[in-house]
Every structure is written in C-alpha cells, then in structure tokens.
C-alpha cells in the first residue's frame, strides 16, 4: 500500500496548496515527504511562505499564521473524506478579523462541497454569523450546564451575556 499512501499524499498536497492560497490570499505552500525514501517511513513536512515573505523555518511564523496554515491542512483532510461529525473548538481564537472572515468563507465552502456536518465552538461574533444553527450554553444555575437554541438575530444578546 505504498501507492495508497503516495496517492493520499498527492491528493492532500494539491488540496493543501490550493486552500493555503485561498486562506492567505496568495503566498505558496506545499507538503514534502522527508527523512526517508520510503513513503511508509517518511515524515510529513510543511513548506510555507505567506504572501510577500520568504520560505522560512515554520517556528518563525506568527501565532495566527501557524493557525491558518494548520487550518489549510486540516481542511484538506476533511474535504477528502466523509465523517459522522467534524468538530472545531475555538480554532478562530488566534486570528485577526480579516482572517476570521476568510476562515469562515472557506468553512462554508467545505460544508457545501464535502457534505460534512460541523460543530463549531466559538466566542467570535463574525464566526457566529456564518452558522446555520446556534446553540447557547449557559450556567444559570452555577455549576450546571443548560443548552438554549438561539436564533441568529438573538446571537447578539447571547454574546452580550458573555
């Protein structure tokens, strides 16, 4: 199944490069198999250069750039398979407003293309606005969680209660 891994690699690599360009509005990124000529033993390396910047060590990327590059790879694994559920817990926390917007638009496209259901935990008002359904979790009685279904227009008051 060396060929299976190579096929998966090529498919994910193409999707990853494409999604990266979308999220970063440019730049260049691709995957590489490293440390071994055997695809079953090799490590998976990321080569990333945001628009206008040089290809550098991954560690030098900013917090938001690391999150966005990670999301490009995460989405390229979601797109190529169907699963009972996909869960994202506060993945927008390190992103600035412009990047939250781009992340949300990509998330919407992925949902249309892959038919996957998403559970998205967020504190971000922009992200809330992209949801089809909203569930508010509260602790009116301290220590005891309750769920309230929220209308998208009510979302404003829910987060005001935050």
């Amino acid at each position, binding site marked *: 199944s060396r060929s299976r891994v190579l096929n998966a690699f090529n498919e994910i690599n193409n999707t990853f490069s494409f999604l990266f360009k979308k999220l970063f509005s440019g730049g260049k990124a691709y995957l590489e198999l490293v440390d071994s000529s055997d695809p079953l033993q090799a490590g998976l390396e990321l080569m990333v250069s945001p628009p206008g910047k040089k290809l550098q060590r991954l560690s030098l990327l900013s917090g938001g750039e*690391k999150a966005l590059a990670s999301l490009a790879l995460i989405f390229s694994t*979601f797109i190529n398979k169907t699963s009972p559920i996909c869960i994202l817990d506060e993945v927008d926390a390190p992103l600035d407003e412009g990047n939250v917007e781009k992340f949300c638009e990509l998330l919407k496209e992925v949902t249309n293309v892959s038919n996957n*259901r998403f559970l998205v935990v967020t504190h971000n008002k922009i992200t*809330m606005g992209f949801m089809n359904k909203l569930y508010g979790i509260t602790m009116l009685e301290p*220590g005891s969680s309750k769920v309230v279904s929220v209308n998208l227009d009510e979302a404003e008051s829910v987060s005001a209660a935050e």
Partner: protein
Amino acid sequence: MFISKLRISGFKSFCEDTTITISSGLNGIIGPNGSGKSNIVEAIKWVMGENSSKSLRGSGMNDLIFSGSASKASKNIALVSITIEVTKNLLEDNYKKFLKDNIIQVERQAVRDSGSTYRINGKEVKAKDIQFLFADFSSGSRSSNIIDQGSVGNLVLQKPIERRKVLDEAA
C-alpha cells in the same frame, strides 16, 4: 452517515439531561467561559471510545461524572448517547443487524467507582465493537476530525514523523 442527535446526562457539568440536535451544515456552540462548550466536545469523544486523561482533561472515569455544585448534589451515573443516521450499504455486515430504520444509536454509561458500558441500539457490546464501528466510519475519537481547544496550531508545531499520521489516516 452522520450524527443527528446528541444526548448528555450526568457527564461533567451536564447535571441535567440535555439533548442537542445536530443539523446539516454549520452548528455553532456559544456561551461564556466555563459554561460547558468543550465538555460537549469531550462527551462526543468519550461516547466514541476515548479514554485518554489528556484528551478528556480528567484523570479517571470518576472525573467525568457530575461531581456536584454549590446548589446540586453529585450524580453517580454519566450517560452520553449519539444517534447516527446510516445508509445501509455503507455498514459492515456484522453491524447491519443493529440497524433500525437506518438509525444506529451508540450509548456509553459510566457508574461511579465502576467501569463504563457501551450499547448499540440498546444492546450491550464491548469497547472493541465500538472501535470497529467507528473505524468503519473512518472517524472515531482519535480521528483528525476533532480539533481540540488550543491545538489548532499543532500540525505546524509537530515533528514531521508525528505529522505523517494525517497521511496514514487518509490512505
């Protein structure tokens, strides 16, 4: 196949019997710090077979059972159940027997100071059966479909040899 409903009762901060419908598309979970959002994520991981303390933030099964609050007594039982709608031909033969009207309900229950038990459509099964069922669905609590709070940057921070797991799961 996809999850259409989630029921949580006595698991972590969910003292009350709580049901959440999961619709197609984007389902947002919002609320103040400490209200229980990540507990919902962990309930789903747990019912799909997760046991790791790191992944559930607890250090044993008892940590997962509602331990009481200022105004409520602790519980002795934690229950999580997910309802999965399945297209018959996508299921392995040995699981087809469980299928009722294209629905498979998976339930896990923990009793304080005792272990946990699994049920598929009400019939008790072993942990291994749950593992195979979800391996079938190419997801399961360890699959790359669940991104925990704080870990979104991990794929970039990992060593290449750890990151390749993404490749192995896709192949």
